[in-house]
């Protein structure tokens, strides 16, 4: 294919280790695509093409073509409109709740990638590689450093960005999905504090992130992600996702439980006072200061209605625990993703 006949370069979008990325218009249809032109190691661009072709998910740009032009390899893929996560955090400064909501989406994506068969270890998680699209979805770009593996991966060289990469990524030849978990922990610290670990002293602002957390489960989760010993982290993003949902659920359950607790306290108090008044009236004890309206509720035909209401209130109190439990179950319905196979020659 002669690229110059098919595509027209509009502008340069970015430049990285493996290549330059351009916005290109497909002349026949006018549609826009991203075009990555190899400048670095050719194997990385081929690897990226292979990975893009192997993964079918709306959160990964789809591969259009892999071509050769003027002694260079060119990767043509979906153009992702939106802003990088870095831009998003710097411009919008999300609060802790917003940051965790967004981080949940990001972790779900990596949980999907890690649990594939083979799984994918991304190795270059940083906010510049995560796009927030115009319809508030997330997309992961730049698969140049990714490796596909059924477990551990043996790699020929280190990869990753300083400040975000796990310690073992820069030095060792053997890595696993826990390397991505470390980077996700650093990413969360950036999202919570706005402090960029890719600048000196090249370390995440852990204290700031922990201070922004609203419960102990979240604090523990961040510390576990950032452990320098890979065996002490979550083994992959699925483990992190479960912990994150659990931590969020504790938050949610706390608020729901608090509401039910308040309702239950109020109802219990009302029930107690009401029952006492009812008994007093039945035994014909006279309390001279009883407000007049009480006699309406305790005498005659309304007495039966009153007993019914009391019974219903008691049932409601008992049900409050069950409802709270059910809400918790709905939040935690999925425990893990185990098999993810799609074979097609489409």
């Amino acid at each position: 294919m002669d690229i110059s006949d098919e595509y027209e370069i509009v502008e340069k979008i970015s430049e990285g280790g493996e290549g330059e990325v351009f916005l290109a218009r497909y002349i026949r249809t006018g549609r826009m695509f991203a075009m990555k032109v190899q400048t670095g190691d050719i194997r990385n661009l081929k690897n990226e093409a292979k990975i893009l072709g192997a993964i079918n998910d709306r959160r990964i740009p789809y591969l259009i073509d892999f071509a050769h032009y003027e002694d260079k390899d060119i990767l043509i893929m979906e153009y992702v409109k939106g802003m990088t996560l870095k831009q998003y955090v710097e411009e919008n400064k999300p609060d802790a709740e917003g940051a965790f909501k967004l981080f949940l989406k990001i972790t779900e994506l990596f949980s999907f990638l890690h649990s594939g068969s083979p799984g994918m270890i991304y190795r270059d998680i940083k906010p510049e590689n995560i796009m927030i699209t115009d319809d508030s979805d997330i997309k992961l770009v730049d698969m140049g450093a990714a490796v596909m593996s059924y477990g551990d991966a043996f790699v020929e060289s280190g990869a990753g960005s300083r400040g975000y990469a796990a310690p073992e990524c820069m030095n060792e030849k053997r890595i696993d999905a826990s390397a991505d978990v470390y980077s996700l922990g650093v990413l969360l610290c950036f999202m919570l504090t706005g402090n960029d670990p890719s600048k000196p002293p090249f370390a995440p602002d852990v204290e700031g992130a922990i201070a922004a957390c609203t419960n102990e489960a979240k604090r523990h989760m961040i510390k576990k992600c950032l452990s320098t010993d890979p065996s002490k982290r979550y083994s992959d993003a699925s483990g992190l996702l479960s912990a994150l949902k659990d931590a969020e659920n504790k938050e949610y359950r706390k608020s729901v439980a608090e509401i039910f607790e308040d309702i239950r306290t109020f109802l219990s108090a009302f029930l107690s006072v009401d029952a006492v008044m009812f008994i007093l009236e039945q035994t014909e004890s006279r309390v001279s200061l009883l407000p007049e309206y009480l006699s309406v509720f305790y005498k005659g035909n309304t007495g039966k209605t009153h007993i019914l209401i009391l019974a219903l209130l008691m049932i409601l109190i008992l049900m409050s625990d069950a409802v709270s439990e059910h809400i918790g179950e709905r939040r935690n319905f999925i425990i893990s993703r185990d098999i993810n196979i799609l074979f097609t020659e489409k």
Partner: protein
Amino acid sequence: MFRFSNVIYEKGKREKNEDSIALHKLTSVRGDIIMALVCDGCGGMDEGSFASGTVAEEFSIWFYNELPDILRGIAVRKRLEGAVNRKLYEVHERLKSYGMQKDEKLGTTFTLFIAYGNKYICFQAGDSTVLKLTAKDAEYICDIQANGNVLTRCIGSGRYRPPKLSFGKIRSDTAFLVMSDGMYGKIKKEEFLKAAGPVEPADERKTEKRLKALADTALKRDCRDNMSLIYLRF
């Protein structure tokens, strides 16, 4: 209850594999959720794989995005039937429209097997099928919808006709094979039972070897079609 799975995905003597398969599993608080899907594309080389691949991709996304919500509610079977039909109709119309634009006829068979907890439900359109194996018996749980070589139900071509439905309970020591006609066309169900019947002890590697041997046997018997099979052992 779910023990293991095996997959065969071979193009056989054809130049391209027009089959597409998807196997996904989640663990939920109410048990395992498994989806096995086999689609056998028709309409020529690229069109066949495009049709089957589109259906497989769309249902893979549907499995993660929509199925859990259906399964944690009530009236699961009814809602599942509605949801699958809606999704399949949407994909059918898309494929039809694509075929009209390109002035090509394309389509695919559709065999979807969903296991949730101790129940299964199966949707079938075309001539791919599901074989249920117990310790002593092998039984096709889906009727093949074909008249000789002509499909009487096909997704992406002609009028939309909802897939046929079958459902039941999953008992322990049961296995299911979801497969395209390339496999069952040359291998009898008794042979499947002998090779992959749910006998103890359950051995994933041995079963995989035996299933691959069956695929080789099909080739030796002059199978000229793609061969796709998903084996689920409970």
